[in-house]
């Protein structure tokens, strides 16, 4: 305890205060034009190609941000799903292709509506996602209800692509199989170890674990996303180092 704050929370606070200026510094350098090369991530290359292929086909692309909810322990996965939606939606609106989003948390509904109806960046091209009542849909608050509703959409709507990035459990397979049955171009990703085996079975293009957080950095090269990716890699090196030292010390000291 330091004052009335437990030690683990103090460590968190110190870590945050150290990481924040580092993040700001890296972000600033990237904004000033410093170029960095990213390590190869096949899942991310697949996501980019799949979006392009789905858009070439010219029909709607379905995006799911998962069965997670804002304000719970799946918030960050849901945010990763929103980033993927932002990328797909921007590219779709430039190609004149509609984006269809399904959510299982109604608090996400205004947020996804706002994302998909952003004006197109291409001069003279209007965003096809207006009105958004049918393009941004709340399917039901539970994972199974959501899966049931989304299966219907995947099987009956005229779609060419299915991007599902966020918090998913075993219920993913119900939707993944519907998508595969319809021969949709599919890219999926989650951090949940209980959902990943089903994703690997149903889709050839799976973003595994932390890869779902990298879409903004790899595809859109947003500086803030690149900066957070660099911080992630620095953190990984530190953890590997600590584990290595721990193993050596444990082996020597017993």
């Amino acid at each position, binding site marked *: 305890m330091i004052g009335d*704050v437990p030690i683990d*929370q*103090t460590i968190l606070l110190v870590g*945050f205060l150290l*990481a*924040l200026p580092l*993040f*700001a510094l890296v972000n600033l350098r990237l904004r000033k034009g410093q170029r960095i090369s990213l390590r190869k991530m096949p899942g991310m290359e697949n996501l980019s190609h799949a979006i392009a292929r789905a858009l070439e086909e010219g029909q709607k692309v379905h995006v799911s941000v998962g069965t997670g909810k804002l*304000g719970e322990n799946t918030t*960050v996965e849901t*945010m*990763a799903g*929103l*980033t993927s939606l*932002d990328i797909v939606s921007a590219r779709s609106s430039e190609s004149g292709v509609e984006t269809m989003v399904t959510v299982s948390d*109604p*608090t996400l*509904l*205004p*947020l996804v509506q*706002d994302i998909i109806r*952003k004006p197109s960046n291409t001069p003279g091209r209007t965003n096809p996602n207006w009105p958004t*009542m*049918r393009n*941004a*849909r*709340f*399917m039901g608050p*539970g994972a*199974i209800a959501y*899966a*049931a509703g989304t299966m*219907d959409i995947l099987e009956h709507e005229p779609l060419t692509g299915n991007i599902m990035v966020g918090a998913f459990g*075993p219920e993913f*397979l*119900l939707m*993944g*199989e519907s998508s*595969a049955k319809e021969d949709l171009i599919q890219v999926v990703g989650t*951090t949940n*170890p209980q959902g*990943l085996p*089903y994703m*690997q*079975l*149903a889709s*050839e293009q799976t973003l*595994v*674990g*932390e890869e*779902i*957080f*990298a879409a903004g950095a790899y595809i859109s090269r947003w500086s*803030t996303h690149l900066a*957070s990716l660099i*911080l*992630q890699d620095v*953190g*990984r090196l530190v*953890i590997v180092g600590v584990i290595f030292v721990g193993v050596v010390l444990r082996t020597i000291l017993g």
Partner: protein
Amino acid sequence: MLSFFTSAPTIQGLTTLFIHTAMIIAAFAFLLGVLNILLVHLGKIARREGGWGYSLALVLVMLAVLVLGRPGTRGPMEGSVAWVLQNIQIPLEAAFLSLLIFFIITASQRALRSRPREAGFMLFVAAIVLLGQIPVGEKILPQWPAFKDWLLAVPTMAGIRGLLLGVALGTIATGLRLLALTDRERYFK
């Protein structure tokens, strides 16, 4: 976030205020979600789109449950609403999830055709674990259950820990980005 690091009464009071505000917003968002479902399905019924009968059933059941839990009752705790949940919703969800086994079979078949090496290895390991869980595995080879336990406790756990460490780092990095408000313009233009 400050309330996570201090128990100062002012901060705690503010936290409670924010939580209550978020709860009210969430309640209204739920109303928005219900309206979204109603309008989409009423539209399908009006246009007699394919499967409009299912939409009609959905709307009727939704309204029936809303009436059962109307203001003046105990809402979701009301006996009739609880009965619907206990005897219709939960068994339906369980039945729906049990379909997963058939989906696993078809997905495995397709994966074996398109990626025979990876899918074959995955299914081989799954079969080892499955046989280790049932008595017949021990009958074939007495060490089978112990091998299954080792498989789950060592290589599988090592993989999951690696995955979770990466996810934790990704979570921290994303959290940092959100707290630094650098994503605000992206989502709230």
